[in-house]
């Protein structure tokens, strides 16, 4: 293993049991495969953006990466130390679980809910300093907090430090949450839809700030978003990578520009089609490339390639087994048979449309 890797996910699985009893359909408890067989290395000072629709498992994967969600299969390692073995005191523990957890931080979509409404900014920000820098006295802590507030543009810091969360705008709350995470000197910050709740015009500002601080603090970001434009901005500026998730699986990953300029997975292409564009000439105006609008029920995912029920390119071969990730070079990987010129896929018949009893959508082709 590369010793520059901060977090390494090895064939991670997170399966949840869902009790179907309150709902009229289903019956017995069912298993939701929130994350299924995902491997991902996050090096130092890197930005990885994970993009996918809600329910694709991106948040679960993110939480697994920072050690707040225990995987049901596979391993999560922090600098080579198995996170959950450290937690259980199993084997030779090199890095204690406490230290791992402090090194892996999170900022949430809703900063208002993640800050204690009864504590001033000063009060909220003192906690991480007390944990990480026990040697600091009150005066030093205040200095440091003021310095950070100025750094993120909250001037005058003396004034902002005394405020309560409700006296801050959404953007300011998110900045405080970011400072709080950074004061823990983390190696990795999970930013879960961290700019999605902000006004469109404030998003660039917040992402620029994250990138600026990433440089200073040597932090990696795992940036989760359903919005390809935001992901492209932050990963692009940091020369990072983008991973596309669909129903618990990583279907494509690679350097951001490589993936966006030459998307290989039909799902990545669909996401790009769906991303609104400000350039009136760029709009193809075309109708949906998907065969079905709705995402299948994650409790009952399609067999084979999980995307085959919506995929415009699906053939019989796609219903059999889930395609393995193929390496296309320069770290660009895709899990689709179309990337393999010699695969049976190409001689396999196109998929006949089937009825869909559960999501209840009419296929576009038959509805027309």
């Amino acid at each position, binding site marked *: 293993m590369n010793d520059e890797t901060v977090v390494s996910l090895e064939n991670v699985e997170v399966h949840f049991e869902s009790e179907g009893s309150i709902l009229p359909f289903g019956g017995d408890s069912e298993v939701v495969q929130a994350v299924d067989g995902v491997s991902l290395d996050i090096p130092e000072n890197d930005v990885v953006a994970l993009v996918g629709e809600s329910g694709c498992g991106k948040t679960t994967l993110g939480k697994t990466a920072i050690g707040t969600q225990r995987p049901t299969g596979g391993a999560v390692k922090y600098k080579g130390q198995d996170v959950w073995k450290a937690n259980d005191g199993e084997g030779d523990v090199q890095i204690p679980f406490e230290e791992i957890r402090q090194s892996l931080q999170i900022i949430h979509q809703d900063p208002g809910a993640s800050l204690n409404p009864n504590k001033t900014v000063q009060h909220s920000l003192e906690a991480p300093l007390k944990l990480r820098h026990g040697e600091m006295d009150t005066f030093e802590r205040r200095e440091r907090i003021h310095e950070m507030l100025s750094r993120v543009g909250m001037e005058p810091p003396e004034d902002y430090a005394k405020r309560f969360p409700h006296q801050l705008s959404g953007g300011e709350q998110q900045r405080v949450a970011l400072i709080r995470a950074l004061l823990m000197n983390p190696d990795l910050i999970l930013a879960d839809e961290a700019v999605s709740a902000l*006004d469109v015009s404030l998003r*660039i500002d917040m992402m620029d700030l994250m990138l600026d601080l990433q440089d200073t603090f040597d932090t990696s970001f795992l940036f989760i978003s359903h919005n*390809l434009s935001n992901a492209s901005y932050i990963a692009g500026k940091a020369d990072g990578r983008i991973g596309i998730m669909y129903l618990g699986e990583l279907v494509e990953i690679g350097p951001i520009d490589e993936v966006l300029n030459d998307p290989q997975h039909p799902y990545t292409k669909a996401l790009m089609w769906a*991303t*609104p564009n400000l*350039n*009136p000439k760029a709009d193809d105006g075309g109708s*949906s490339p998907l065969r079905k*609008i*709705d995402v299948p029920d994650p409790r009952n995912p399609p067999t084979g390639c999980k995307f085959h029920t919506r995929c415009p390119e699906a053939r019989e071969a796609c219903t059999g087994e889930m395609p393995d990730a193929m390496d296309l070079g320069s770290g660009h990987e895709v899990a689709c048979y179309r990337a393999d010129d010699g695969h049976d896929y190409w001689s396999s018949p196109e998929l006949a449309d089937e009825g869909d009893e559960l999501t209840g959508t009419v296929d576009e082709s038959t509805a027309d």
Partner: protein
Amino acid sequence: MTMQQTHTAAVDDPIFEVRDVSVSFDMDRGESRVLDRVDMDIERGEILGVVGESGSGKSMFASALLDAVVDPGVLTGDITFDPEDGPRIDLLDRDETDIKDIRWRQIAMVFQGAMSSFNPTMSIEAHFRETLSVHDYDVEAGMERARRLLSELYLEADQVLDSHPHELSGGMSQRALIALALVLEPEVLVMDEPTAALDLLMQRSIIELIREIADERDLTIVFITHDLPLVANLADRLAVLYAFEFVEVGPSDEVLTGAKHPYTRALLNATPNLDTPREEMRPIEGAAPDPVNVPEGCSYHPRCPVADDTCVREDPPLTDDGDDHAAACHHVDRVTEEVPLTLQEVTVDE
């Protein structure tokens, strides 16, 4: 060339004429005006995209069109609604029973978060039946229409009608709500962030469906959102709100490629977009004003790179140069040079 003040921005057959409309709230800190004397004409059959950031007054504009501003908000001004068949209606001059009948029958609305618009204890079918019977429509003929609408929105009509709201996914219930809004065959559909809580693919799919339905039925749509790119390629015209006033209105393509107001241009440059070079994107300096304390003169002047003394003193009216693209700025002629559009440069280069 004479600068002429315009209300209309070249609208030939307005279904709505909004004149001097304000919404204000009395607050401890003073009067808060969340819509400030706006004029707007909406063309019959068009899709008008109303774009504004949070706290720009965009939802108030939606509520005003339906005369549905909630207490203690005070709505003043004139809104004339001119339905296809029937006399012109002075919306703000009607009593509550009249207004309730006009809403839904003639002007329907779809808001963000379908879940809270449905009654969780009623099936979707019961919602349709109740809506039809309350408004004295033929229920059976209406249910036929409902089934057709649902399948046009790629829903399995019978299955959805049998369901309760919690059994549908977010995208399905949002589409069911659009069908419910259209079942009384209204002339106008006002949509306030109808796709905000939905995923990209569902958003885009619903946008396509809205476009098709609008075409087919000659529906007038007012689509209100904070997400400029989302509506950019749907709307025929775009209207941009800043600090409770319209600062620009014009055909979508012209606003996107040749915005006249410095705020619109800054907003375009600040909006994450796949085609805009990342290094060229710039955030907008400063913050949006507090409704209790909107700057004198042009409300954008504290953030505007072009602003001078005139802008501090005088609030510019929304004017055009005789074309149908209007902006509220004293320095429209200087804006193109001083606030370059990053996306525009790229497309011109190509």
